[in-house]
């Protein structure tokens, strides 16, 4: 009964710190979240699973069989056919308490490229809804994931980390200011009409920019997003023409390859009379040719580069991050205690059932020899036996339920009780 072995929490992933954008591109699960989840759930030994894929990270969380085989299966699943010679070097792997700690850290935005940004919590919630809809979550993840949301909220309300919420879009604004001075009257072009494009606009909209144009492969989507910013929409073939009149370009399409090359831009820059053009590429895989940055008066930043900008004022938040780490650690301990109790529960149940069965058995044996026993007396005997049983199990239950002590000690407790009462037949104590 391999699938009934003890549940193991295992987390495998990559993020912006462990892998450059080139590697992350390879595992961005473009196949569609539902298909990926189904494939993930189909791995042998998997009982619950959860997938989070954003442009900065991919996290695969698993509850099921532990051990190296599971981790290998997950790595193979993440990289698929794209597994390069040493793709596994970019992965991190956490188990049990460390996995819980990592998840809470991610949810609280402490592991984000931009520490304290709020986008990750929304992405986590969406991924949870998806996993729940696909029937991938069970008892453990149904507690762990909602718990991670409350941890994130606690971190947000008890530390100053969210106060000066800085995001990629904020970093983009700071950079744009170093290029253009003020952003007032500047024109912004969005390539791609996805959620990232919208998020990137949040800070820009406060900068009194002149107009927003949305260019998208599907014109209807472009129109929909442009409507929200009171901007214009255009189809993808118009891209080069539109580039002549804008100042800031934010690209976030789901295209598999580059959509703008250096040689496309050279004549555009000439027609612009070299007015500076600032490109922000937040798509993974990248949309814009990295060589664009070599052109004069053209500045190209991808999301890794933007992370470097935010690094500049990261120091201020470092202190708050320490406070936040303490909260995460505390909540991890609480969760692991809950896990331990869950592990104890079978022992507690078994203890109760064991004593109750003995009582019922002995009562039946005794009453069989006493046909004259009245109903009321029978009930009294039952009550007496229940009281005896309760008194016998009281002390062992208290012993099991005591919350102090580390995890291994609690496991020992369960073991001691099981041996004393001889629950495990093959155990030498019986």
């Amino acid at each position, binding site marked *: 009964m391999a699938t009934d072995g003890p549940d193991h929490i295992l987390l495998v992933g990559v993020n912006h710190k462990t892998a450059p954008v080139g590697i992350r591109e390879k595992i961005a699960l473009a196949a569609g979240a539902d298909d990926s989840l189904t494939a993930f759930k189909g791995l042998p030994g998997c009982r619950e699973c959860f997938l989070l894929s954003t442009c900065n990270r991919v996290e695969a969380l698993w509850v099921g069989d532990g051990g190296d085989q599971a981790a290998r299966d997950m790595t193979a699943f993440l990289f698929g056919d794209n597994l390069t010679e040493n793709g596994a070097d970019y992965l991190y792997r956490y188990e049990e308490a460390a996995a819980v700690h990592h998840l809470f850290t991610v949810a609280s935005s402490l592991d984000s490229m931009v520490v304290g940004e709020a986008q990750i919590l929304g992405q986590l919630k969406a991924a949870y809804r998806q996993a729940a809809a696909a029937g991938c979550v069970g008892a453990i993840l149904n507690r762990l994931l909602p718990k991670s949301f409350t941890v994130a909220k606690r971190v947000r309300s008890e530390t100053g980390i969210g106060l000066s919420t800085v995001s990629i879009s904020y970093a983009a604004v700071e*950079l744009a200011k170093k*290029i253009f001075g003020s952003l007032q009257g500047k024109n912004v072009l969005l390539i791609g009409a996805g959620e990232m494009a919208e998020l990137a606009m949040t800070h820009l909209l406060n900068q009194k920019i002149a107009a927003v144009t949305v260019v998208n492969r599907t014109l209807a989507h472009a129109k929909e997003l442009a409507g929200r910013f009171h901007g214009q929409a255009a189809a993808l073939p118009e891209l080069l023409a539109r580039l002549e009149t804008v100042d800031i370009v934010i690209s976030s399409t789901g295209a598999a390859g580059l959509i703008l090359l250096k040689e496309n831009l050279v004549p555009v820059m000439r027609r612009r009379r*070299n007015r*500076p053009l600032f490109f922000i590429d937040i798509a993974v895989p990248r949309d814009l040719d990295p060589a664009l940055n070599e052109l004069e*008066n053209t*500045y190209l930043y991808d999301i890794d580069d933007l992370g470097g900008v935010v690094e500049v004022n990261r120091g201020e938040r470092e202190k708050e991050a320490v406070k936040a780490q303490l909260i995460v650690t505390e909540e991890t301990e609480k969760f692991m205690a809950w896990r331990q109790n869950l592990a104890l529960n079978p022992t507690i149940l078994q203890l109760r059932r064991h004593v109750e069965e003995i009582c019922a058995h002995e009562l039946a044996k005794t009453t069989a020899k006493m046909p004259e026993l009245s109903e009321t007396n029978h009930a009294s005997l039952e009550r007496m036996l229940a009281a005896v049983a309760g008194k016998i199990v009281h002390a062992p239950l208290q012993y099991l339920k005591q919350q102090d002590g580390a995890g291994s000690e609690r496991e020992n407790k369960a073991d001691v009780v099981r041996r004393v009462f001889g629950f495990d037949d093959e155990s030498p104590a019986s």
Partner: protein
Amino acid sequence: MEQMTGALFDAVLAVAVLTAVAYLIFFIRQNSGLRHVARMLMMVSGVLQLLYIFARFSRLGAMPLTNPHEAVVFFACAATWAYLTFRWRYKVKNFGAFVSILVALLLALAALFSATFSPAPAISKTLWLPVHAGLSLAAYSFFSLAFCGGLMYLLQERELKGKHFGYFFSRLPSLDALDQLNSHCLAIGFILLTMGIVSGSLWLWQVHGVYWRWGEKEVSSALIWLVYLVQLHQRFTVGWRGKRAAAMAVIGFVVIVLTLMLVVTPSGGAGIHGN
């Protein structure tokens, strides 16, 4: 009188160096209290330079542009006042640090030349010579501001293109501000330079009866004028801006300094407008 102007020059140099040091410390520490001090020192420095030039004027009875020392002091003074008036209209972050260092260097250079009063030659006592020299040096002062802005632009551009945000990223202004400074200084400087050349030509006509000679001074002025004409032309026709314009501002200024040295030194104390 000589002693008095000598002491005044020492004061001018000391205050200019002090201003540069104050701006430099402000640049490193970014403490806004210090900026106020540095700005006041810059004003004092500008006033002292004017006083020094006026002292020499009253002693000479003519515009004090008779020797390299006076010319370089005038250059520094024009740069200081160009900066002060520029600052009044535009705000370019930490521009003062660069300009104050340039002014201090110019005044230190002036200290190397002899400050003795040479009797003003009769031919320089015409109206057009001081006008010509003053206009040309004022033009150079604007080009020197463009030079400072160009240096700052190149430093900031390197941070932005290289994507590692080091020491200068937060301390230097936006590329746009520096490019505007460039075009502003280039336009004013070019107008002044053109007027300087025209007045020089009028002076030549007054003294020698010709508008143009192929002397080393005339050739170097024409060279500088051409260098800036090309910049201006390219900027307004094909849109040379940004890094290229900044680099040109730096090169143009280097050409100015080189030709000034060439013209000034062989003639010794005879003055840049001798002959």
